């Protein structure tokens, strides 16, 4: 089973490389920007797929987690702490080595949190919020769960829109690049930013992160915990009777999917150099749900392909002013005619074959 999985991953890696080479040859490397962004959005979608498709728990609030990641990371790395330099907290942070000095575009002194520390903080906060929210919310089912997560997403949106700290309607801009690895031994540093020169590098960073995230999730769903998750979707009662701690499992996967969304938010924000409240809007959350649905609900590969593909088209502006409408229509059409995803319509036969192969040793 490792066999088919690694083969598919290798194909994906090859495809990613070929795509980059093609854009180079055809002189269309401006596509790379949207391809990079699509990879980050697809990261949210595959995380949500495990929650929705495999564990069967709907969330219409994942843009909220994306925004928590993006906004916290952006705010921490841009807000100047110099006015607060005397406070014990800031001094403590300074001693921990998580602060950096710099200059803004007007040459003024800046003291901010380093991107690494900000990223970790953002993801931890997102995980913590998911954990605290998940304990009560995941007891709910059906409409109640949908509305509760929708409500959570709306609260995050309102907070982003109304607080000065997060830039209100303008959002946060001038977010610095995120140096993942410093340059060593003559190699250039690995930085997530929107610089023209590092476009290729960023394309590979984004797809690298996505592929690693994909491998981890593929492993997960074939593991003991993954089977437990899928059994919850099948019958919560029977899963409990088989000894699965359903509440704990659901909570774990909720936190996991929130972490995926938050990580995507952090990286995309550094890549774009900022973000605005629309990233937290309900429509974004619905869009992620649509992408999970069109990918086939319980189908990570479908989610990755559709998540990256449709987002790319959307970012290229293919749908024009019908962008949101396209995603609404996708939701309806998929749910009406192919609730198991459009890939399932044709690949049903193939999938059973693959499944047979993948459960054989």
């Amino acid at each position: 089973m490792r066999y088919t999985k690694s083969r598919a991953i290798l194909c994906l890696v090859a495809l990613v490389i070929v795509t980059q080479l093609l854009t180079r040859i055809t002189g269309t490397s401006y596509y790379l920007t949207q391809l990079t962004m699509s990879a980050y959005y697809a990261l949210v979608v595959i995380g949500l797929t495990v929650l929705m498709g495999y564990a069967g728990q709907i969330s219409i609030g994942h843009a909220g987690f994306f925004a928590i990641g993006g906004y916290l990371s952006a705010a921490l790395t841009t807000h100047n702490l110099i006015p607060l330099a005397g406070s014990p907290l800031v001094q403590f942070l300074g001693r921990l080595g998580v602060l950096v000095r710099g200059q803004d575009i007007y040459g003024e002194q800046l003291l901010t949190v380093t991107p690494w520390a900000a990223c970790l903080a953002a993801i931890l906060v997102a995980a913590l919020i998911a954990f605290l929210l998940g304990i009560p919310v995941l007891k709910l089912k059906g409409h109640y769960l949908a509305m509760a997560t929708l409500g959570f997403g709306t609260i995050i949106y309102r907070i982003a829109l109304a607080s000065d700290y997060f830039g209100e309607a303008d959002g946060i801009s001038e977010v610095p690049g995120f140096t993942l690895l410093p340059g060593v031994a003559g190699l250039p540093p690995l930085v997530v930013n929107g610089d023209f020169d590092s476009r290729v590098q960023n394309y590979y960073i984004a797809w690298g992160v996505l592929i690693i995230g994909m491998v981890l999730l593929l492993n997960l769903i074939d593991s003991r915990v993954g089977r437990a998750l899928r059994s919850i979707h099948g019958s919560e009662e029977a899963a409990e009777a088989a000894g699965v701690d359903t509440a704990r499992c659901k909570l774990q996967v909720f936190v996991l999917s929130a972490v995926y969304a938050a990580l995507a938010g952090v990286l995309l924000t550094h890549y774009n150099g900022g973000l605005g409240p629309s990233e937290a809007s309900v429509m974004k959350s619905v869009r992620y749900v649509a992408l999970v649905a069109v990918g086939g609900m319980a189908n990570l590969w479908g989610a990755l392909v559709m998540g990256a593909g449709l987002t790319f088209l959307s970012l290229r502006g293919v749908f024009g002013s019908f962008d949101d409408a396209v995603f609404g229509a996708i939701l309806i059409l998929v749910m009406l005619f192919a609730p198991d995803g459009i890939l399932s319509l044709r690949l049903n036969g193939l999938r059973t074959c693959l499944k047979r192969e993948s459960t054989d040793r």
Partner: protein
Amino acid sequence: MTADLFFQYLFAGITYGIMYAIVAIGFNIIYNTTGIINFAQGEFVMLGGMIAISLLHFVPLPLAVAGGVVITMLVGALIEILFIRWLDNPSVLRMIIITIGLSILIREAALHIWGESIRSLPYFYGNEITTITLGPVRISPQVLWVLGVCGIVVLLLSVFFKVTPLGREMRACAANRRAAILCGINARNMVTFSFMLSAGIGALAGCVMSPITYTQYDSGTPLAIKGFTVAILGGLGNSMGAVAAGILLGIIEAYSISFVPLAFQDAISITILLIILFVRPHGLFGSGEAARLKEF
């Protein structure tokens, strides 16, 4: 807080609360006959207002309102016939996603038809500055319109469900669909009808509140969340509960202005929603036993 201000807030709270209650009743009607929460309920409210505003260019106000209601009812029926009627025992998740998709499509259609501008119907009587003095408070006559129309709607609905054959058949469907079908009731038509009814009620609410709250292509979703909060608070499916819960939420919101910045106002009702969902998902007034009898 002065006594004047106190009453002013109270009236504002009741007015908004009644509007939320009407949206909640729209949820309830469809929920009772189908077990579906229609996430596009807020869009019916928006559509009603928008259509009436457009019709106003051609016909006088009462006709425009009537037109808005009727056209929205047709939209509701159309939606049910096109997207819901022929589904064979769909899962709850599927229905949630379909109605969310519908709400997006309606909203986007509204955006393309009416643009992003904020519109409103004129005041039904007088204008923005006309006031009526009622004891300690001065209120806009539109508030009385809202209270009156919504009160009549609630009254007519309860008469409809209790007395008329059609209303009884709908209740039979709600109580036990299979048994109702065996008694020769056409359950599918009942569902279509419930969509029409709740679209119509939503549209009417959208018209009477338009002068106060204004109407925009995307004003549906926030209303839907509040309406849902009220529906849950009052006990899903319970219309009288919805009225009480609506007024309660409206008043809480009105007074919260004194403590919380306006921008965070929506957050209050959502927080209430979350708390209620966690501690009393069967509502303030319903009983747990009764709620469990319905399948969610």
